[in-house]
């Protein structure tokens, strides 16, 4: 487990950071928040590149920073490899030498994937002899990922690794990130302000605003809450981890199983049995008190109304619906609440168009 508690102030009246959280020993923990919320400063302090005024950073019980005891471990001795937004490849070294930079400095007993394995994982075979100046933005970031992984770190730190890329390059690199996450047996701390990256990669989320932690927990749990700034987003909605159950080529549908039911969505590329995480936007979910008939919508699911948001302050209201053990969100007008007499405990039908489902991360090209 990674424990982080930091207090830092920039300038006398400047930005104040006061955040503490923990991250589990495996999986991806996303530090999520708007620009300037302090998430990159937190990452720099964990890496040892920023010395906070006070705080403590510990991994698996071993303190690397503890200002109360006057302890500060230099960044090169923490073995927390970092991936930066701007890649920061060494311009005078070839891609191969960049990849080996951390590997050559890793302790002999450190374990992790080997050079060939990482090169294959990130599809870098054909660029090994090149200088970073001759790489595309996406290739550069893939080399940076491989270089960090090959340093055999105990913790991977990623500071908005996709933020400097255009949409096409992001789509190119994201699948490789998902692959790296599955290949790395170490925790990853991932800073981002892009919710789709959280959806695609993160298990845990630490929600930050103005230097403070608003909430932390499993991504699914935080997405289903209506009391966080996340709910104010256009893409607010529940996250469901689904299993690809069946493909129907004739009807052009894929069946997705989730705890508490099954969705039909337009045909997807993933193989049967694989996992896909689906963001079900609250504005795409309608509620009916009777089962609708003669409707194009593929998914009409029996649900129980768990909670109805405050209808006095806003013309739009969040509903929490239980489908078995899963909670999904629906966003309806205040008028609909009154018209249908919606109240907690009511049995309703959740109506979800198949085409509203986002395409999740496409699988990476075969190695």
């Amino acid at each position, binding site marked *: 487990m990674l424990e982080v508690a930091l207090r830092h102030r920039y300038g006398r009246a400047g930005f104040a950071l006061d955040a503490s959280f923990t991250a589990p020993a495996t999986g991806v923990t996303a530090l999520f928040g708007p620009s300037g919320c302090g998430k990159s400063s937190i990452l720099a302090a964990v*890496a*040892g*590149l920023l010395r906070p005024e006070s705080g403590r950073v510990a991994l698996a019980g071993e303190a690397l920073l503890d200002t109360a005891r006057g302890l500060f471990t*230099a*960044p*090169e*001795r*923490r*073995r*927390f*490899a*970092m991936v*930066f937004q*701007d890649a*920061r490849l*060494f*311009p*005078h070294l070839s891609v191969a030498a960049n990849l080996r*930079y*951390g590997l050559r*400095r*890793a302790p002999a007993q450190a374990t992790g994937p080997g050079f060939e394995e990482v090169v294959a994982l990130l599809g870098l075979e054909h660029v090994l002899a090149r*200088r*970073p*100046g*001759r790489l595309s933005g996406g290739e550069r970031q893939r080399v940076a990922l491989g*270089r*960090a992984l090959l*340093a055999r770190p105990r913790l991977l*730190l990623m500071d908005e690794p996709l933020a400097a890329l255009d949409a096409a390059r992001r789509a190119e690199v994201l699948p490789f990130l998902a692959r790296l996450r599955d290949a790395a047996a170490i925790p990853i701390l991932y800073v981002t302000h892009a919710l789709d990256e959280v959806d695609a990669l993160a298990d845990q989320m630490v929600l930050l605003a103005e230097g403070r932690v608003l909430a932390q927990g499993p991504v699914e749990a935080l997405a289903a809450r209506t009391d966080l700034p996340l709910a104010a987003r256009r893409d607010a909605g529940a996250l469901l981890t689904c299993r690809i159950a069946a493909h129907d080529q004739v009807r052009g549908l894929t069946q997705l199983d989730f705890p508490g039911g099954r969705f039909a969505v337009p045909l997807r590329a993933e193989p049967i049995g694989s996992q896909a995480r689906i963001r079900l936007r609250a504005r795409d979910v309608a509620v009916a008190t009777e089962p609708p008939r003669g409707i194009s919508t593929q998914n009409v699911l029996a649900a129980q109304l768990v909670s109805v948001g405050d209808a006095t302050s806003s013309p739009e209201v969040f509903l929490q619906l239980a489908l078995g053990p899963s909670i999904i969100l629906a966003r309806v007008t205040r008028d609909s609440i009154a018209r249908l007499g919606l109240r907690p405990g009511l049995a309703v039908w959740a109506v979800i168009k198949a085409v509203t489902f986002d395409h999740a991360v496409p699988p990476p090209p075969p190695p």
Partner: protein
Amino acid sequence: MILSGEEWQAVRLSLDVATRSVLVSLIPAVAVAWALARGRFAGRMLLDALVHVPLVVPPVVVGWGLLMLFGLRGPIGAPLYEWFGIRLVFTTGGAALATAVMSFPLIVRAVRLGLENVDPGLEAAAASLGASPLDRFLTVTLPLMSPGILAGAVTAFAAGLGEFGAVITFAANIPGETQTLPLAIYTATQTPGGEAVAGRLALISFTLAMLGLLLAEWIARRMHMLLGRG
């Protein structure tokens, strides 16, 4: 072009003095450039001014200052001579020292420029990959600032070939010992009928300086390509 033995001697001596002066000042120049570019200490501005003094005071004054410090009775020259038997005044070594002091600001400026072009973010990346401060300097900072170091060295070498005032004041004008090209030219102009000698030496002086500057430019371009910025 045919040169007399004495004229060749002046050319060789100039190359010798300029080479030695660059070798002597290179490492201190890198250290001073580092302190000026990255250091956070009181007196940084004073150090900056001190380094640049030879650019703004008359070279004769620099020579006089060296004479005071490194003369046989000077605070540095006396112990050097008594303990190690090293005498700098009126020697080739002294000419190299005077040249080194004069060209020091040129090297420092070029090295500092090279250092300021190195993104400290790359050093942070190296640190997170397990490189110690010395390791980071040797494998990241030094290679990336090397165009600045080379450019500084070549410029200082070219300028060092022509150092006059400080050399003649501190090391005097001794043929074969301290009489470099500019001193030989000066001597020729003071000698009746020496115009031809002065002309030949001036042409050589000009050619060497031009070659130095062209070399510096070529090295800079070559390094940019090697460092993957081209």
